[in-house]
C-alpha cells in the first residue's frame, strides 16, 4: 500500500528546498477537494482547494475559446505574493503560493519534474 500523502509531501519538500520563498503548497482534486497540502490551517486548505479548482476550471475553458492549446497553468499576482496553479494531467491541480520576489527561473525548472512525479504517484495510488 503506497502512502500517497507521504510521497507527495516529499515532492513538496523538494520544491520548497530548491525554490526559496514558497509560502504554501496545495494539491487539490479537479472538483476542489484537498489531496495533500502544506498550508497553515485546515480551513485554509479546504477553501484554497475549492478556489484553485474553480480558477483552473475556468482558465482551462479559455484554451479552446482562444485556440491557445491545452491548459498548463495559471498565475495570479498580488502586491505581496503570487499564486501559481498547474494542471497535474487531468487528475489534480497543484497550487504554489510564493513571495513576490521568487526566483521564477528556478520554479519553472523544478515544477515540470514535480508534476510528473505527482501524477505518477497519484496514478499508482489508484
Amino acid at each position: 500500500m503506497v502512502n500517497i500523502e507521504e510521497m507527495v509531501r516529499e515532492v513538496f519538500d523538494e520544491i520548497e528546498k530548491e525554490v526559496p520563498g514558497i509560502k504554501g503548497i496545495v494539491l487539490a482534486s479537479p472538483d476542489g477537494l484537498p489531496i495533500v497540502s502544506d498550508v497553515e490551517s485546515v480551513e485554509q486548505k479546504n477553501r484554497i482547494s475549492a478556489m484553485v479548482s474553480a480558477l483552473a476550471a475556468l482558465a482551462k475553458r479559455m484554451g479552446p475559446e482562444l485556440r491557445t492549446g491545452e491548459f498548463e497553468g495559471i498565475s495570479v499576482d498580488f502586491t505581496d505574493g503570487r499564486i501559481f496553479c498547474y494542471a497535474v494531467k487531468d487528475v489534480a491541480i497543484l497550487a504554489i503560493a510564493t513571495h513576490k520576489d521568487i526566483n521564477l527561473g528556478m520554479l519553472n525548472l523544478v515544477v515540470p519534474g514535480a508534476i510528473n512525479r505527482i501524477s505518477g504517484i497519484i496514478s499508482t495510488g489508484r
Partner: protein
Amino acid sequence: MSRIYKVLVTGPVGAGKTSFIKNISEIPVVDTDVRSTIDIGKETTTVAMDYGLIHIGDDEIHLFGTPGQDRFSFMWDILSEGAIGFILLVDSTNPSTFPLARKILDHVLSRFPIPYIVGITKNDIQPAWDPDFIAEYLEVEPSRVRPVLAIDRKSVLDFIVYFFELYLKAKERR
C-alpha cells in the same frame, strides 16, 4: 431598445442549475463541470460557473449559474455581483439539500436584496416534496415558488419568462 440583464441561477448540488442553463442558452454554454471524486448522485459537478444567454423579446438575459457544493460558497458572492435577480433551484426529491437551499437564499439575500423566485425541480420523479411545503420550509411566499423541469426546454423557457415578467412588474412598481 435592447437591454442587458444578468440573472443568477443558484441552488444546492444536483438541483439542476447546469441543466437549466444548458437547456435554454442560445449560445454554447461555458460550463465548468468536472468529474466528481465523491458520490453526489451524479457524474459531474460545477466548480466555477455556468454561463449562457437567452433573449426575451429584445432583451438579453445573461444567465450565470453557481456551483452547488457548499465549499464553493465564495462563488455565490462573485457571481451575484450586478445581477438584477436570482433563481433558486431546489430538488424536490432530495430533502437533505433543503437546509443548504435555505442557507444560499439567506446568504444571497443578505448581500443582494434582489428579486428572486424558487424553482422546484424534479417533481416528475416520485416521491417528491410538495412545492408548498418547500415554500414553508424556506419561509418564502408560495407565489414565489413554482415547479420547473430543468431537463425540459419548454418548461425552463416558461419559467424564465415568468421570472422576467415578475421582475419587470416589480420594477414598474418602484
